[in-house]
């Protein structure tokens, strides 16, 4: 009897403690590309783990990583790898960090649905965004001025697009810099001659995603989870979470959840590419 009472007591104390261990209170900041995914993951996690409170905001990868350094966020979400300069700053502040790939993303080039252009080569994209080509008729479209939308330089997507699509060339000075991916979607949906680039998860019926060719027009591939997964879509990239090792215990249950089968299922449902 005594043993049963002890066992019951242990269970009575241990079960709440185990539940308590999954309770996560943290802030996530950074990449707009990661934003819808983090929001959904956090929402599901909080439903499954009452008492958890996870707030998610965007602002761009650079902003998130700067917030990690200044201690104003617990997790920095980033669509680019942390730069060495940022690592040095963290090191100078005596802060060790962990890097986790949570998903992959395909970067989609989008135009207004009224635009009759359906596909472009990388070279054509480079010419459009660097200002060499200024009219849609030069790339098989109507006689219409091209209005290029880009993210701001603090965005990881901006840097990725510049490096992998523009071949490190400068954006045209006429390109309009938008503070968030959502703003690009809205602008492209409302402007006939617009073109922009967004994360796969942001594609909706208001914009048209173009097929892209990286072999000078031999094959064109549409951005999709499947084409990104089988690596036929050329503009894909990993998405990262960065957090300090000093708070690993606090955030790890949530990070583990994203990496779990349930979390990766959400990754797929939200239009991102699972890591496995």
């Amino acid at each position, binding site marked *: 009897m005594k043993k049963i009472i002890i066992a019951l007591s242990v269970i009575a104390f241990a079960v709440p403690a185990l539940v308590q261990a999954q309770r996560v209170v943290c802030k996530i900041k950074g990449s707009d590309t990661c934003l819808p995914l983090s929001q959904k993951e956090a929402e599901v996690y909080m439903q499954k783990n009452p008492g958890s409170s996870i707030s998610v905001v965007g602002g761009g990868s650079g902003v998130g990583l700067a917030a990690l350094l200044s201690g104003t966020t617990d997790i920095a979400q980033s669509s680019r790898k942390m*730069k*060495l300069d940022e690592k040095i700053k963290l*090191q100078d502040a005596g*802060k060790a960090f962990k890097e986790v790939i949570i998903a992959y993303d395909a970067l989609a080039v989008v135009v207004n649905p009224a635009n009759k252009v359906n596909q472009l080569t990388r070279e054509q994209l480079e010419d459009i965004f660097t200002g060499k080509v200024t009219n849609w008729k030069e790339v098989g479209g109507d006689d219409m001025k091209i209005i290029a939308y880009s993210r701001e330089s603090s965005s990881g997507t901006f840097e990725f697009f510049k490096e992998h699509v523009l071949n490190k060339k400068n954006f045209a000075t006429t390109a309009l810099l938008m503070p968030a991916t959502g703003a690009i979607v809205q602008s492209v949906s409302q402007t006939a001659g617009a073109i922009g680039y967004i994360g796969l998860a942001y594609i909706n019926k208001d914009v048209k995603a173009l097929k892209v060719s990286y072999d000078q027009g031999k094959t064109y591939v549409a951005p999709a989870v499947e084409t990104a997964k089988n690596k036929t879509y050329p503009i894909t990239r990993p998405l990262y979470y960065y957090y300090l090792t000093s708070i690993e215990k606090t955030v790890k249950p949530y990070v583990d959840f994203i990496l779990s089968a349930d979390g990766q299922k959400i990754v797929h449902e939200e239009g991102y590419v699972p890591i496995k």
Partner: protein
Amino acid sequence: MKKKITQSKFYFFGIILLIMAGILPAAAQVNDEQKADTLTPAVEQVKSDLTVLKRLKISGYIQAQWQKAEQAGIPSFAGGNFTADVDNRFSVRRGRVKFTYDNDWSQYVLQLDVTERGVAIKDAYASFTDPWTKYFTLTGGVFNRPFGYEIVYSSSIRESPERSRFVQTLFPGERDLGAKLTIQPPKTSKYNFISLDLALINGTGNTAVDFDKYKDFIGRLAIVKSNKKENIKYGVGVSYYYGGWKQATKFNYSMKDVTLKEGGTMKAFVVDSAGSAIGDMLKREYFGVDAQFAFDFPFGMTQIRGEFIMGTQPGTSSTTTSATAQPTQNPSVPYATTAIYDTTGAITGYTTVANAAVSSDAYRRKLDGFYFYLVQNIFQTRHQFIFKYDWYDPNTDVSGNDIGANAKSLPKGAKPTSSTDIKYSTIGIGWAFRWNSNVKLTAYYDIVKNESTSAITNKSPLKDFAGDIKDNVFTLRLQYKF
């Protein structure tokens, strides 16, 4: 009695509740209407005020330290000379507060240094970036001289407590008064990794008032890049300095081969006393090259930095430190009697005034200097190992026992070299513990070696250069940065 009080309390709270039940909803309705009218403009006002406040950034750091010298009264580049009889000291090495106001394409910076030695201006400049191409930034005021890497590398993040000996000697205080043009493509450009600085400065250092008409030029071209994996970063720069200061006397010494009275030749200072050079510029010219590497290894980040400088420095017989005022010697008679004249030119009396300082003769030397840093982070911990080596050779034409030698055998018009011409090298070994973003503790030991010469011997252990002078320094520093 107790019961009465309880009852009266009951009635009191009852009345209050009734009043609240009737009044509060009405009041809330009024407040809601008022909120609808006032909240938006109030938020707008707060946002507007916040935008202005966010433009002003206040930062700074304080470095409190304790130092132990190998012996009392040593001259030192580890935070200044130790006074006589002092072999250990507490000090506030730097107490900085910096105000930065960013206004889109312009920036205003004022930085003060507040220590037990007083208050000094470190930075006071305004800079403007052209809003069209964003390639050009013009800076005017007191700012860091854009020569090499260590000068502009902030003391708050530098791993060694002090800059290298050659930097402290040639660029005391690091700053100068002048104007600077920086050409660097904006962050959005493919060529953002290249920068060019062109500066025109007084050449007197910090906030010192210029004493001649000559201005100095500094140019630096640098690149900084990282590899795609972001685990290697490298930077390379080349720098050039051209300027000088006005020669005040007709005696101008430079190193030349001379024939000794006893036979043989050696290098010594030979005077040019033609006199035509008075008022001319004594050339000050340096060439510099610097490189920096950072490697993100699994066992911790490694940083390597090096910088080499060579050139010509005009100094005096007793120092090669860059002049902040017209170099002078102590006058032999400190006071003189001077007549007082009336408007007709007649003497009406006499007065005693301080004698004008005698201008010093100029000594030109060829120099070189170097430093090397190895900074190793211990895995991803807060601990860091520091190794540094630097040298400064103020006179590359002479070395070893030739320094100060044959003073009596030199021909007329020649002067021997002295302790001013001795080369110094310093090995620094240190450990840093970064407690958090604000607090850093550094323990650092400077092993200072001087070039020894049997020609300069003295009973004083601080002046006997026959061997190595015991002038090592240990520094324990606590830094708080915000």
